[in-house]
């Protein structure tokens, strides 16, 4: 697992992908910080985090698109799958590598709080709640992207597929309000990643929300392992 983690992280930074992702995150979050906090004269950083939801929706798939697909295309997966490594170790290694790059990218977020704290007193707890939310959100997007990437040999299909899936799970939020059957509507509403993330940005840390995100990650990592397993039997 550690060998895979190390290789994938270094692969992110030998190709431009890692740099591009970090740059996009810093650029967009910086822009949102300027627009919603600095120029608006607000000490509330939550809008920055709320807007980052959409940036990550589009750009995390670019981080995850080649994780499984490129190897399959180059047939390098034969090295991993015939090495004495468990499939779950392999998948978790890949997941953590993308997660590490993601953490580097969002490590700039607390800095905005630090900048504001020179001028006014800010609510650090709310900020850390926001950071926890975005960390969970990143994990969810990465596990989804990893899963989609394991289904195809084509990076572009993996990226487009992941973005599409991310949009679909975002739309669960709106879908809930148009379903007339109350039970179904509630069930769908409860699956809304955006609603749960939104609660984090309001500074509400609810254990059920954290568990929800962790479960989604676990489910998609598990599915990825199953996809690799299935490939052996095909």
């Amino acid at each position, binding site marked *: 697992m550690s*060998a*895979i983690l*190390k290789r994938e992280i270094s692969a992110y930074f030998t190709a431009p992908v890692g740099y591009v992702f970090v740059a996009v995150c810093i650029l967009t979050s910086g822009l949102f910080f300027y627009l919603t906090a600095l120029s608006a004269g607000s000490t509330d950083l939550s809008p920055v985090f709320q807007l980052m939801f959409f940036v990550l929706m589009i750009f995390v798939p670019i981080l995850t698109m080649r994780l499984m697909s490129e190897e399959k295309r*180059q047939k*390098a997966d*034969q090295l*991993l799958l*015939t090495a*004495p490594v468990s499939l779950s170790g392999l998948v978790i290694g890949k997941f953590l590598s993308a997660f590490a790059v993601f953490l580097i990218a969002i490590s700039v977020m607390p800095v905005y709080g630090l900048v504001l704290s020179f001028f006014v007193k800010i609510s650090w707890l709310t900020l850390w709640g926001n950071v926890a939310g975005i960390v969970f959100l990143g994990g969810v997007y990465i596990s989804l992207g990893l899963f989609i990437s394991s289904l195809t040999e084509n990076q572009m299909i993996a990226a487009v597929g992941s973005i599409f899936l991310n949009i679909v799970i975002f739309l669960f939020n709106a879908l809930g309000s148009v379903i007339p059957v109350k039970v179904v509507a509630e069930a769908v509403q409860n699956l809304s990643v955006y609603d749960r993330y939104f609660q984090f940005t309001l500074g509400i840390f609810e254990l059920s929300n954290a568990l929800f995100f962790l479960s989604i990650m676990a489910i998609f990592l598990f599915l990825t392992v199953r996809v690799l397993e299935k490939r*052996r039997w095909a």
Partner: protein
Amino acid sequence: MIEVENLTKFYGNNKAVDNISFKAEEGEILGFLGPNGAGKSTTMNILTGYISSNSGRALIDGIDILEEPIAAKRNIGYLPEYPPLYTDMTVDEYLKFAYNLKKCKMPRNSHIGEICDLVKISDVRGRAIRNLSKGYRQRVGLAQALIGNPGTLILDEPTVGLDPKQIIEIRSLIKKLGKNHTVILSSHILPEIQAVCDRIVVINKGKIVANENAATLAAGLSENLTLRIRVEGKEEEVKKLLSSIPLIKRVATLREAEKGESPSAGVFEYEIEPKKGEDVRRDIFKKLSSRNYPLLMMKSNELTLEEVFLKLVTGDIYGNMQNKKTDQKEAL
């Protein structure tokens, strides 16, 4: 040691490997010979745990690859048909990654250094794999298989893409490794298998058609080889002359030599089938020179892989061809 028992693999409805069993002892080089699509790579992929068989089992040093994959894989070095390389890494980075992946315990730098010397890639260690030629990539793939000094080496067409000098080097390396490893190597080139392997398993359409000692198989195959000769002189007379040699079973005119092959006209090529196991080359020379017919070329017809299969399947090349012809006639 590798033991394979009744292995079967389906791709959809297509039976890629059909109930094959064989055994490779320690310190033995087993050659896997077969045409493209015979099931060589599929079998190797099953042995290394990359894909699963539908039935049967494969044991590596007594460990079932399906039941305890991680323990079994620890003893295997695998060079697949396409070397599994990360083209964005340098050779050194790649080999270090393979070292970490296989959780080796040996001193890292000296171990990798030794392997690089062995497969002669020490001079490209700092270069990105994407810039390497096919021959170098193949050797990096081989180096990867050797990392961790596994007891079993499974090499799928290891000499593909190498130049003749490298092929000889890699063959002698495999022979050397075969002394203290179990090696399975596949190829569709008969002389290559003959040169390297102790035992040969011939596989065709997923089935084993022969599993024999290399020497026995080669001896069996080389009897009643035909000769091809080129003689200057009147076709009828030469043919008559050759037919008069008692050890020759059959003489056939193949064609008139073309201008590029022979400067003078009236040069014909003949195929000669001697009686079983007889060497008629000296007789041919003496007979022709006694009548002053210049012998311009003489070579033995090596069996092609197709002929080897026909021979193994039917026991006789010519017989089979004749049968085919009569079959066609009947069909008409």
